[in-house]
C-alpha cells in the first residue's frame, strides 16, 4: 500500500429537520403509510408550483456559519432533468451554478503514527435540493411500487475537496460532519432512516502523480459501510492498475452482504441533466440581517465549547474533546458544572466518561435520554466533594438514581445511611477495637510491611460498612501506630 496514495472526496446528503417539505406544505415525518405525505405539489399534478420553505434556508445558513463558509447573497435554484418513476416532475430542483454556501471547512483528528494531529477538510460547497421518492421493488410481484412520501424532503448536499487520504480520514470527516449537523440542529442524524447519506469519490495514484481516475460509491448510510466500501474500492483499484488495466470513471454501488463494490453506470451512460434556472422560483436572496438573525440563534459550536471547557474548567484537551463530540453531552456537562460549581468540573467529567458513559453504552441509550439527570449527577458529585459521600459508596448512589429510586443523591444517602463518617471521635473507638483484635498486623507493620497497614485500613472500613472517610482512617491509624 505504501507506494500508493489514496484520494477521497465525500458528498453527503443531509436531510434537513424542517416540519414541511422544501417546496410544499406536506409533512416530512418519517414512517407514514406510502404516499400519505405527498400533496399535489409532491406528486407533480399538472399546474402545481413550488414555493420555497424558508426554514430549509435557515438550516443552510446555520451550516454555512458553522463551517465558516461564504453564504451567497443570491443563489439560484436550477432544474436537473431526468426521468425516473420516483422523480415525479421529471426534474429535481437543486442548485447548480450558484450554491447557497461556498467554501468553509471541517477539522478532523487523524493519526500519523502514534500522535493524533488536526487536519482541515476543505468544503467545496453546500447546496439546497429536494429529495426524490422511493421505488419499492419488493412485494409487488415483478412490478415496482412508488412511495412519494420522501419526495420533496429538503436536503443539504455537502461536497468536500478531495482532501482525505484514507478510509479512516473519510470516516473521521463523516463523523465530524454528522456531529456538527446534529449539534446545530439541522438534521436528526438518523442514518438508518436515510437522514445522512454519503457518496465517496475514490481514486489512487503514485505519490506526486496527477490525480487518478475516480469512481463514485453511492449511498453509504453507515460509517462502517463507508469504511468497508472505501477499503474495498482502494484495493480493487490498486489491483486493477497493478495488473495493467485502466480505471474508468464510473458510479458504483456497495453491497454490504459481499463487502464488494460493483459498477452501476459508466461515464458513457452518464445523463445530460440539462440544468437550467428554474423559472418557477425566484433567486434566493439572503440579506446580512437574515444571517445575523440566524447567527444569534445558533448554539455555541463544538470547537468553541471545547476550548472554553479547557480554559474555564481546566479540563484536559482530551476530556474536553470527548465531552463535546455530542451537543447533548456538552450541555449535560455545562448544566452539571453550573449546579456543582466549577471546582468540581473535573470530577463531573470523570463521572461522565466513567460510570455514566459505561451505563449508557451498556443499555444503548443516548445521553439525551439518560435516566440520571445533569442536576442529579451534580448533586452527587457535590456530596463526594464535601466529604459526605465516599467515592466507593457514590456508585451505589449512582445506581439508585439511575434506577429512579430517589429524586436526588441526598435522599439516597439519607434513606440508605450512606453518609460518610468524618467524626474522629466516632472512628477512633472502632480503630482501637481493630488494633486490639489484630496484634499480628501491628507487628508486621512495625517490621516494615506496608501491606499490613492496608489490611488494617480494610478492617476499619469493613467495620464501618464503608462509611468511614478513608483518608481520615489513614491519618488516625498512622497516628495511633506511631504513638
Amino acid at each position: 500500500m505504501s507506494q500508493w496514495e489514496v484520494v477521497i472526496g465525500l458528498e453527503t446528503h443531509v436531510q434537513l429537520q424542517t416540519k414541511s417539505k422544501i417546496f410544499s406544505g406536506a409533512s416530512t415525518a418519517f414512517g407514514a403509510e406510502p404516499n400519505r405525505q405527498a400533496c399535489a405539489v409532491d406528486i407533480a399534478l399538472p399546474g402545481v408550483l413550488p414555493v420555497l420553505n424558508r426554514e430549509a434556508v435557515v438550516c443552510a445558513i446555520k451550516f454555512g456559519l458553522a463551517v465558516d463558509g461564504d453564504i451567497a447573497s443570491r443563489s439560484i435554484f436550477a432544474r436537473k432533468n431526468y426521468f425516473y418513476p420516483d422523480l415525479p416532475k421529471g426534474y429535481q430542483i437543486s442548485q447548480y451554478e450558484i450554491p447557497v454556501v461556498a467554501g468553509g471547512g471541517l477539522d478532523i483528528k487523524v493519526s500519523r503514527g502514534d500522535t493524533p494531529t488536526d487536519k482541515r477538510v476543505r468544503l467545496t460547497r453546500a447546496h439546497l435540493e429536494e429529495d426524490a421518492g422511493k421505488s419499492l421493488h419488493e412485494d409487488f410481484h415483478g412490478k415496482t411500487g412508488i412511495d412519494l412520501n420522501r419526495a420533496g424532503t429538503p436536503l443539504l448536499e455537502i461536497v468536500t475537496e478531495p482532501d482525505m487520504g484514507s478510509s479512516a480520514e473519510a470516516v473521521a470527516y463523516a463523523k465530524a460532519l454528522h456531529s456538527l449537523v446534529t449539534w446545530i440542529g439541522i438534521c436528526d442524524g438518523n442514518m438508518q432512516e436515510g437522514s445522512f447519506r454519503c457518496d465517496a469519490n475514490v481514486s489512487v495514484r503514485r505519490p506526486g502523480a496527477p490525480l487518478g481516475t475516480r469512481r463514485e460509491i453511492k449511498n453509504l448510510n453507515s460509517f462502517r459501510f463507508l469504511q468497508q466500501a472505501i477499503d474495498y474500492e482502494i484495493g480493487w483499484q490498486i489491483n486493477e492498475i497493478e495488473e495493467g488495466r485502466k480505471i474508468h470513471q464510473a458510479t458504483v454501488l456497495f453491497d454490504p452482504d459481499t463487502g464488494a463494490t460493483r459498477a452501476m453506470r459508466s461515464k458513457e451512460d452518464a445523463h445530460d441533466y440539462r440544468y437550467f434556472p428554474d423559472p418557477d422560483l425566484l433567486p434566493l436572496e439572503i440579506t446580512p440581517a437574515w444571517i445575523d438573525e440566524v447567527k444569534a440563534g445558533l448554539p455555541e459550536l463544538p470547537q468553541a465549547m471545547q476550548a472554553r471547557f479547557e480554559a474555564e474548567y481546566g479540563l484536559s484537551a482530551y476530556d474536553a474533546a470527548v465531552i463535546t463530540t455530542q451537543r447533548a453531552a456538552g450541555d449535560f456537562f455545562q448544566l452539571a458544572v453550573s449546579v456543582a460549581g466549577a471546582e468540581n468540573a473535573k470530577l463531573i467529567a470523570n463521572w461522565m466518561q466513567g460510570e455514566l458513559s459505561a451505563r449508557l453504552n451498556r443499555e444503548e441509550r443516548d445521553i439525551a435520554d439518560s435516566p440520571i439527570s445533569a442536576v442529579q449527577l451534580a448533586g452527587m458529585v457535590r456530596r463526594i466533594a464535601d466529604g459526605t459521600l465516599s467515592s466507593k459508596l457514590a456508585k451505589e448512589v449512582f445506581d439508585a438514581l439511575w434506577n429512579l429510586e430517589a429524586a436526588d443523591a441526598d435522599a439516597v444517602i439519607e434513606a440508605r445511611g450512606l453518609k460518610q463518617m468524618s467524626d474522629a471521635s466516632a472512628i477512633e473507638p472502632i480503630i482501637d477495637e481493630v488494633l486490639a483484635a489484630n496484634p499480628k498486623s501491628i507487628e508486621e507493620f512495625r517490621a516494615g510491611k506496608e501491606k499490613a497497614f492496608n489490611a488494617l485500613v480494610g478492617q476499619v472500613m469493613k467495620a464501618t460498612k464503608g462509611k468511614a472517610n478513608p483518608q481520615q482512617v489513614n491519618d488516625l491509624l498512622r497516628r495511633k501506630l506511631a504513638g
Partner: protein
Amino acid sequence: MIQAGLKEISAALAEKKISAIELATLFLGRIEQLNPSLNAFITTDRDKTLAMARAADERRAKGERGPLLGIPLAHKDIFCTEGWLTTCGSKMLANFVSPYDAHVVSQFKAAGAVTLGKCNMDEFAMGSSNETSHFGPVKNPWDTSRVPGGSSGGSAAAVAACLTPAATGTDTGGSIRQPAALCGLTGLKPTYGVVSRYGMIAFASSLDQGGPMAKSAEDCALLLSGMAGFDERDSTSLQRKAEDYSRDLNKPLAGLRIGLPKEFFGAGMDDDVRAAVDAALDEYRKLGATTVEVSLPNSGLSVPAYYVIAPAEASSNLSRFDGVRYGHRAAVYGDLVDMYCKSRAGGFGEEVKRRILIGTYVLSHGYYDAYYLQAQKIRRLIATDFSEAFKKCDVIMGPTSPSVAFAFGAKGADPVQMYLADIYTIAVNLAGLPGMSIPCGFGNADMPVGLQIIGPWFAEAKMLNVAHQYQLVTDWHRRRPERGA
C-alpha cells in the same frame, strides 16, 4: 342577453330580471346548438353548471351582491378545475379529472361566477391556429373555413359566437391577443406576475400569463379585477395591493402619447390590416392623442429568442407527463424506458413533440451557452428597448397579427410560417409587459382586425382606459358574426 356585456348581465341579475339558472340554461342551450359546428368547448357538464348557478341564486337570495355573482364564464382547458376534465387539448390528459382548482378558477368561484365549460385550445397551448388540439380544430365563427387563432382559440370562438359572455385565456407568446384579434374580441395579457399561475398547466413558466377574453375593455376590466392578486402558491406572483382595473375607464385621452414602433409598421403586415390599424390611430388622434415614432431595434430577434426559451422551459415542464401517475399510458410496453417512450410518443401530438425536441436540444450540454444563454440576453435587450420607448410614450400601438384569420391548413407545412403569426405579440411576453388586442375594423373577406395596445409594467388600468375610450366612439367590438346574432 346573449349579446349583452357583463355590466348589463350583472345589472339584470341584480334587478332580478333574470336568474343565474336562467342565464346558465340560456348559454348551455347556445352551446348545444352551435358547439358541434364550432368545436369551441371540449367539456360541458350541465349538472355541474346548473348546480353552480343554483348556488349563485341562493347566495343572492341571502343578500349577497357582487359584479360576478351568477355570471356565466368559460375556462380555457389549461386551467385545472376541480371535478372537471382538464385536458390541455392533449391526448396525454384526455382522462385527467383535476382534483383541485387553479387560483384563477377558485377566485371566480368565490365571486360566484358559473362555469359553463372548458374551452378547446392548441395542445399544451402550443399553436397559433388551434389546429394542434387533440380534440380537433376550433372554427372561426366569422368564417368556419378559417382558424380562430390560438392557442386560446376555443375561448375566442366561444365568446365571439356568444356561447359564453366571456372566457379565460392564457398568453405565452400571443395566445390571448392573437385569437382575440382573429375573432373580433377584446383580450388582455396582464403584466407577468399579476395573475397567479397556480393550477394553470405550464407551457413556458417565465412567459405564461392568464387573462380575460371578452366583448369589451369594460368587461375585461371587470374580469381582471376578479382574476388578479397575490397568491402565495405562485412564487412569481407579485405582492401588490388589489386593484380595481375599472377605475380609470372614463378618463379622457387628451394628451395621450402613442408610440408607434417603426419595426411593427414595415414589411410583413398585410395591407388590409395596415388600413384598419391606421384608421384606428386616426380615431385616437381625434380623441386627443398624439402619435410618435419609437423604435424596438431588437424586436426582430424576438421570435428566434422565444423559440429557444419557450421550448426549453416546455421540454422540462412537460416531463411530468410520463405515464406513471396520471394521464395517458401506452397499453402495451416492455420495460420502463419503453413505457416512457410509448406513452409520450402516443400521448403528445406533433407540435408538442417538436418543441420538446427543440427544448431538449437547446438545453443540452455544449449547446446551452450558445442558445439558452444567448436567448436570455436577447430577452433583456428587448425589455430595455421597451423601457427606452416608454420614455417617449404612454402606450405603444400596432397590429396584433400580421394578417386576418387564415384558412385551415394554410400554414401547416412549415412551422416557421406559423411561428411568424406571433411576430408582433411575442416581444411583449419576453419583456413581461401587459398587452391587449381590441377590434379595430375588418380586412380581407370581412374578417376582424385587431389593434394591439402595449403598456409599461402594471399599466393595465391605463390600457383598459385607452381601449374603452376608443370603444365608446366605435362599434367594431359590437359586431357579431352571423352565428353570433
